[in-house]
């Protein structure tokens, strides 16, 4: 197994005694494209900042290419590209000046590449960055992070302000890079359809921990919604392996499980002799199930009618 590119071990981060990250473990291997999902305020940005050494963990440790993130060498930093939620630009510089200025910090800056991205993404080199729209600023932020061809690219909500065609352009640039250079990407987003196109892995952040981390295909193959129909009333207790959440009704139950397979189906038949309908779920639905789920599965208040 290759050394993880980026890693968190028992990471904790609190603000004013309020825990945002609560003993989180994560290890991203080279070549993985990881989409980070979480509701607003779940700590995606905090996690990203801790991973990159921009915030000091309350406890635990983060490593980038094996080095402590809080104390990274310049050589390691030069292998990183980071796009913050709001690109930090110097408003008096033009797009071109901003690129040249950023490039001056890097040994292996590819000015020609940057030039063609500016052109492809329809930015005008002579415009002052202070006059750019939010979407244009975001584009420039991405270009600045790609200019030195980083081995690890970390993006915090990179596409939130981009229009659909700009998003597709952005995705295809990433896809090109990944194909040719095998680099590693971590990005947070709310737009699950983008994530579904390019992510190899998904991390779902909930209650300060990763509720799920693994290959996207495995998540889609395994995470299913089951409708169980019971001949003589739904049981009050349903302990299934990998249960995400369930709603109990009189004679049926709607159940979400993380890893559905034939074994589980057989077990359901054996134990409750129930009729089972299996539904596929897309990432958005899966995300809603995970993020809406309480730690302990709760039953809906249908008892009244029974």
């Amino acid at each position, binding site marked *: 197994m290759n050394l993880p590119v980026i890693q968190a071990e028992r990471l904790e981060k609190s603000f004013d005694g309020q825990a945002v990250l609560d003993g989180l473990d994560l290890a991203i291997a080279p*070549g993985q*494209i990881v989409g980070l999902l979480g509701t607003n305020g779940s700590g995606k940005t905090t996690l990203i900042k801790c991973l990159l050494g921009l915030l000091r963990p309350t406890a635990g440790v983060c490593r980038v290419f094996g080095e402590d993130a809080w104390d990274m060498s310049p050589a390691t930093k030069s292998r990183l590209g980071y796009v913050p939620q709001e690109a930090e630009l110097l408003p008096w510089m033009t797009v071109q000046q901003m690129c040249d200025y950023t490039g001056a910090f890097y040994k292996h800056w590819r000015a020609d590449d940057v030039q063609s991205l500016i052109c492809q993404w329809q930015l005008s080199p002579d415009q002052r960055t202070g006059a750019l729209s939010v979407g244009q600023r975001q584009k420039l932020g991405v270009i600045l992070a790609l200019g030195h061809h980083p081995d690890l690219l970390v993006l915090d909500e990179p596409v939130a302000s981009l229009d659909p065609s700009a998003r*597709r352009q952005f*995705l*295809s640039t990433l*896809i*090109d890079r*990944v*194909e040719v250079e095998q680099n590693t990407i971590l990005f947070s987003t709310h737009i*699950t*359809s983008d994530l*579904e*196109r*390019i*992510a*190899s892995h998904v991390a779902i952040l909930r209650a300060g921990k990763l509720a799920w981390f693994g290959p*996207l*295909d495995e998540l*889609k*193959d395994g995470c299913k919604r089951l409708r169980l129909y019971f001949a003589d009333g739904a049981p009050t207790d349903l302990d299934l392996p990998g249960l995400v959440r369930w709603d109990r009704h009189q004679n049926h139950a709607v159940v979400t499980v993380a890893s559905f397979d034939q074994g589980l189906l057989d077990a359901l038949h054996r134990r409750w002799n129930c009729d089972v309908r299996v*539904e*596929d*779920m*897309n*990432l*958005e*639905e899966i995300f809603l199930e995970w993020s809406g789920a309480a730690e302990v599965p709760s039953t809906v208040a249908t008892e009244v009618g029974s």
Partner: protein
Amino acid sequence: MTVQPSQFEIHPSSGIPIYRQIIDQVQALIVGGHLHDGQMLPSVRAMATELGVNPMTISKAYARLEADGVVERVRGKGMRILRPAVDGSAAQRLKQLYPSVESAIVRGRQLGLSDKQILDLIRKVLRENPL
């Protein structure tokens, strides 16, 4: 005439993983007579770029097709279709078709159609798609 990436229709937001959609569509193209043995699949790169999906996803689909004996890897050239994928006994193949037919019938009943109406529709669709 070889198959183009644009002949594939990918729904990233479907509940079915993209690699499976590609596998299913390659098999459908073969069954439908649009892909013959000896023809090549588009390159991983062409597929990834055209469909806007992660190249690893395409590679995975191709690797599965190779493992299933649908295509073979030709060094330096790509993936070549092996033979029409008619595998297994008739009973096994019928079993594969069963869920699709079942869900169509359930849907038909939901729409309040009679058994005869459903059967007539199936016959009509069969007529419209000659072998």
